[in-house]
């Protein structure tokens, strides 16, 4: 079993981060907290190098247009798209975490290693229709994330959030596994796209076991995107984890879960039209519940990270609406929205690091007046919040617009109206963020405390925030180039959905 050079080129984007993840713990063997700064620098440098090399190989594959498919791995355009997505999110996270962990005084190499393993798992998860690979990818990215949430062991909330995420996540993984096993049992093949064909040929498409299996698979995906009613873990896990990790979880986990869902449900299980229709109905109901609950709960949060967590739940709702519409254009909209969501959410969590907000809780009180003190960050914050709320010139608006337009075209007018109303409601809590930044003066107590502390120094996090703001603005002004050049090609050439 030897691999050809082109197969190696397809495998290297997955192998390199894993290799980096194996090397970093060796460097972290030294006494952790007191390690010399150059060792920390080398650890972060290695992580960035692994991620950059993976990015280089992925873009190289994308440019040549090769879509190698061998063994259980399918490095088609969609897998390359999600690979680039994950790698960019991981790079932003690594840069932000350098500043965040120094502020928190808890710089550990293990964190980076876990992050890289998680990124590898995410790429694997979206690059296969074979159930074994899917399950291993799912676990490879989930298990490190459980540990990452609880990574700052000194804080009691950290282990608690990790534990909650772990228990719920493990239950969801078991359900996902059971679903796959049931489908295997009926069809006799572990490859889901082959299984769909077998089930259709044998007339077992509406067998209760097959339906249960498909429903359990869907549950696994919906848990990862934190759709209602599987959303309970989200605010706790985000609040407990360090800001950059919360950003990575909100963006990359949701992104790969949606991309894998796209590969499995509308694509691989396409022969099972009856099952697909049933699942679409379930997704429609849950999308409505997610939108309503996510937005209404976000309104009453005083903790910024919990607000962002509920906001990420409501964004899962908008993305699920794209699956309800189910047209190729809607799926393109979902991919485009994911890219913009990556930039705006990584940016929003990066802002917390750039403002130097560490500690137990990050409330709106802590943000007061910071926009004027750091004008560049304040401008970026305005870009992210307006984009998250879906205000026209920003990228977030066009993502929502593409999804809502398709909803109307497929006759789901009521849902489109609900989506627009939900965005209107969401404007309230996003603008509250900006009001705190620009229109409220900090309390005298906070001013006194701030003058005692050393000035915040977070150049890397600040740089990532500006990069994210640039992507969001580019998404607003160059959206057609992005959609046609990137999102649509991933779907057309990767999945062959648009025939």
């Amino acid at each position, binding site marked *: 079993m030897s691999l050809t050079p082109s197969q190696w080129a397809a495998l290297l984007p997955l192998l390199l981060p894993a290799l980096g993840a194996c090397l970093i713990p060796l460097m972290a063997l030294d006494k952790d907290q007191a390690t010399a700064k150059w060792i920390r620098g080398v650890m972060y440098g290695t992580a960035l190098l692994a991620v950059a090399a993976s990015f280089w190989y992925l873009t190289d594959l994308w440019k040549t247009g090769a879509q190698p498919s061998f063994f259980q791995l399918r490095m088609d355009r969609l897998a390359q798209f999600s690979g680039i997505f994950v790698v960019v999110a991981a790079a932003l996270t690594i840069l932000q975490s350098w500043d965040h962990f120094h502020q928190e005084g808890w710089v550990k190499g293990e964190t980076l290693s876990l992050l890289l393993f998680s990124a590898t798992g995410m790429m694997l998860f979206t690059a296969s229709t074979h*159930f*074994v690979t899917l*399950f*291993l990818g799912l*676990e490879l990215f989930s*298990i490190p994330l*459980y*540990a990452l949430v*609880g990574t700052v*062991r000194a804080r*009691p*909330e*950290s*282990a*608690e*959030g*990790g*534990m*909650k995420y*772990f*228990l719920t996540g*493990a*239950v969801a*993984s*078991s*359900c996902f*596994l*059971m679903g796959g*096993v*049931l489908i*295997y*049992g009926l069809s*006799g093949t*572990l490859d889901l796209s082959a299984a769909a064909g077998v089930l259709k040929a044998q007339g077992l498409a509406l067998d209760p076991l097959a339906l249960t299996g498909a429903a359990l698979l869907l549950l696994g995906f919906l848990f990862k995107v934190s759709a209602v009613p599987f959303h309970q873990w989200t*605010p*706790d896990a985000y*609040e*407990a984890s360090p800001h950059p990790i919360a950003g990575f979880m909100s963006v990359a986990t949701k992104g790969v879960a949606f991309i894998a869902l796209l590969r499995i449900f509308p694509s691989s299980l396409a022969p099972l039209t009856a099952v697909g229709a049933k699942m679409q109905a379930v997704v429609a109901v849950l999308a409505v519940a997610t939108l309503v609950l996510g937005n209404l709960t976000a309104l*009453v*949060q*005083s*903790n910024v990270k*919990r607000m962002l967590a509920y906001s990420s739940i409501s964004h899962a709702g908008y993305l699920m609406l794209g699956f309800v519409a189910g047209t190729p254009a809607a799926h393109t909209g979902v991919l485009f929205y994911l890219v913009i969501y990556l930039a705006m959410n990584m940016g929003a969590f990066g802002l917390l690091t750039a403002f130097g907000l560490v500690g137990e809780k990050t409330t709106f009180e802590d943000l007061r007046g910071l926009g004027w003190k750091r004008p560049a960050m304040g401008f970026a914050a305005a870009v992210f919040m307006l984009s998250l709320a879906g205000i026209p010139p920003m990228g977030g608006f066009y993502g929502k617009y593409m999804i809502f337009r398709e909803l109307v075209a497929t006759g789901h007018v009521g849902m489109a109206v609900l989506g627009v109303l939900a965005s209107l409601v969401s404007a309230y809590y996003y603008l509250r963020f900006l009001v705190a930044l620009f229109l409220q003066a900090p309390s005298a107590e906070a001013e006194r405390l701030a003058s005692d502390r050393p000035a915040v120094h977070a150049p890397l996090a600040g740089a990532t925030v500006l990069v994210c703001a640039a992507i969001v603005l580019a998404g607003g002004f160059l959206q057609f180039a992005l959609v046609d050049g990137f999102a649509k090609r991933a779907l057309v050439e990767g999945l062959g959905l648009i025939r």
Partner: protein
Amino acid sequence: MSGMDAILHGGLQGYLVVALLLFALGLATVLLRRTLLLQFMGVELMLNAANVALLAFARFRGGDAQATVFYLFIIAVAACEAAIGLALVIGLFRHRDTTDSDRAASLKQ
């Protein structure tokens, strides 16, 4: 005797019923018990229920090698989950001196 016989000799249904029972039992344990270690055991029970079903199907299909190898992978994954889960339980215990999940409720609005 005949029922037992069916379960012992190739009756797929018997294995499936056992697997689904184990699965439901595991889920009930996670949802109803309030001790983290027991809830964690419930999770393991759910994973192993899937294993029982997988192996029963594999045997029914004439000893599918792919499924048998998958079973070994699942065992390894369960071990990894156990490592992380126990580490988190210990981490929580150090701060709180309890493994009661109702008392781990500091993350609230």
